[in-house]
């Protein structure tokens, strides 16, 4: 047919996002046909930020519902916040600090120190969740259950939603610790950075929710 040319596509070394060649048999892409272009490092950060944007929308919907439902004024009885929440908050803030320390150790080459501080962070995260469950128990002991009144409903809902996302973050912390990073497209340091961004975000989200529950009473 007239007018077509056999295309001479040059083989291009994409070379974006770090000069390391792609590892043989990429283990997390399920593709066995030849080497694939390395995914640029910043793509992981883009994806994380997008995920955080989606999570923000989810919690904004819940927060708006909280404000609207409270404003209906009919049967709102502010649930007293169990004091353990403040302890839990401190734990979570501490864990944000320890995750920063852990990453600094990793960057400085101190792998053992990194692991220790990473475990501390994980432990603090688990402690936070335990504390939240205790807070639930305390509230339930005073007769405030999920359906007791809208204020208690929102308390359980918001803390459970945050807790679920934080649990996901804890899974990410385990993943950073246990995944064989030498055979991956990104380094453990990058993964730690991604996990810590998510972790700080969970921290900030908790502060926001706590403010909503406290100031909105």
């Amino acid at each position, binding site marked *: 047919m007239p007018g*077509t040319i056999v*295309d001479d596509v040059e083989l291009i070394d994409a070379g974006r996002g770090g000069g390391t060649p792609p590892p043989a048999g990429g283990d997390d892409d399920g593709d066995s046909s*030849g080497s694939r272009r390395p995914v640029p490092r910043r793509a992981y950060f883009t994806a994380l930020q997008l*995920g955080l944007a989606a999570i923000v929308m*989810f919690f904004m919907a819940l927060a708006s*519902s909280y404000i609207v439902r409270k404003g209906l004024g009919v049967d709102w009885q502010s649930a007293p916040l169990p004091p353990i929440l403040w302890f839990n908050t401190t734990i979570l803030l501490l864990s944000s600090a320890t995750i920063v320390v852990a990453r600094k150790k990793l960057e400085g080459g101190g792998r053992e120190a990194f692991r220790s501080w990473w475990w501390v962070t994980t432990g603090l995260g688990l402690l936070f969740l335990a504390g939240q469950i205790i807070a639930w128990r305390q509230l339930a002991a005073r007769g405030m259950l999920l359906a007791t009144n809208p204020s208690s409903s929102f308390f359980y*809902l918001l803390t459970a939603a945050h807790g679920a996302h934080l649990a996901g973050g804890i899974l990410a912390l385990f993943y950073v610790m246990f995944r064989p990073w030498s055979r991956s497209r990104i380094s453990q340091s990058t993964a730690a950075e991604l996990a810590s961004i998510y972790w700080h975000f969970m921290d900030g989200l908790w502060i926001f929710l706590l403010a909503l529950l406290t100031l909105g009473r």
Partner: protein
Amino acid sequence: MLSFWTTFVSLVVMICAFFVSGGAPIGGWTSYPPLSALGEIVGPGQGGGETLWIVGLAIFCGASLMGALNFITTLIDLRAKGMTLGRLPLTCWTWFVTAILGLLAFGVLLAACILLLLDRIAGTSFFIPGGLVVTDQVITWHKGGSPLLWQHLFWFFGHPEVYIAILPGMGVASHLLSTFSRKPVFGYRAMVGAVCGIGFLGFCVWGHHMFVSGMSPYSAFAFSILTMTIGVPSAIKTFNWLGTLWGGKITFNCAMLFALGFVSLFVSGGLSGLFLAQPALDLYLHDGYFVVAHFHLIMGVAAIFGMFAGLYFWFPKMFGRFLNEGIGKVHFWFTFIGVYAIFMPMHFLGLAGNPRRYSEMTAGPFLQKLQPVHVFITYAAFITIGAQLIFLFNFLWSVFAGKEAKEENPWHATTLEWSIPSPPPFDNFGGVEPVVYHGPYEFSVPGAADDYIPQHLAPNLVRKA
């Protein structure tokens, strides 16, 4: 792939609603409480059926979020070398904005679904007000909630959702109109701006689904004005489609016919939206057949035409064979005339006051007078659906025995997918990264020997006239 299979799981969960006792829910796709929140006592299917619907929907929210993450990250960070944003085909631009809409809207729907599920199974009262009486039973275990809260949450998702439904079709239309007119898209940058504008404004207009909910007329006014402003980028796109066609060397194959049909249906359906955007008119037209006509034409049918256009266009790439053009043209004409026959009369039904969502339309003299219109519509629907069987036959037959597409690029299109074999290898490009040198719609370029320049063709290989 996770997104795809999670979507499949959500579909399975939803289909299960047909098989539980009580059957599928009657709450509709909008699942308004209190009907959707009170459980079995309000009607058939509102027990397990409704719960499965909501759970299926919540799973779908997760799947959509994953898909959106994938698309947006790919479009921002994983473009081929030389593929600047200004060289993206409009199909990619529309999917980009669609994914952004999905990313931001589905989170809100998920929150709403969770609140509704809690109302149903945990006894909370987010959406259920007090004092309800259902078939002589007073509901005392719920009070204080607001059904309007659900409406706000749902429609905040629901309006971006309809733009999610239509934007990809717009991208396909732009793409195909250009390819089969052998002309660049008229006003590419305006098209991109319009797509972004539609996406952004789509988040600002949800209240136009709630004009009859008792909202403040001032809010209604604001939503009305904002809704009408979406007409501006939509009109820009429509005129640019016409501008793309103007003076072009047009090939009327099936893909092109469906793309043209898309433009026609988009205009027909979109215009009635402007009527519905007036609160004063919507007070009368809401929940009537005028609305049904509007959204079917613009979303149900135009979007479907976009899909058909895409199927006819990319079928040779997917399967290495063509869909049969003759049968395809029969499919097109029956469908095109058929959908107009179905949905145009509905405007008149709506103006006459015919309500929607009734199970039968024979009660009362004013509805009985409209029966002949319903009969006509029903016949048209039977014929139109029958025409889809023609397409199904064409599809299945052509996969195995259709005319072979011997070249990689039978349409002489410009975009990257036409540089790879048909069907493509699993990773599309066979390990070889394409490099992009040109814009996406380099058709009939002065000085070039061919009437198209593929995006990936190195400049030194472009034949001069």
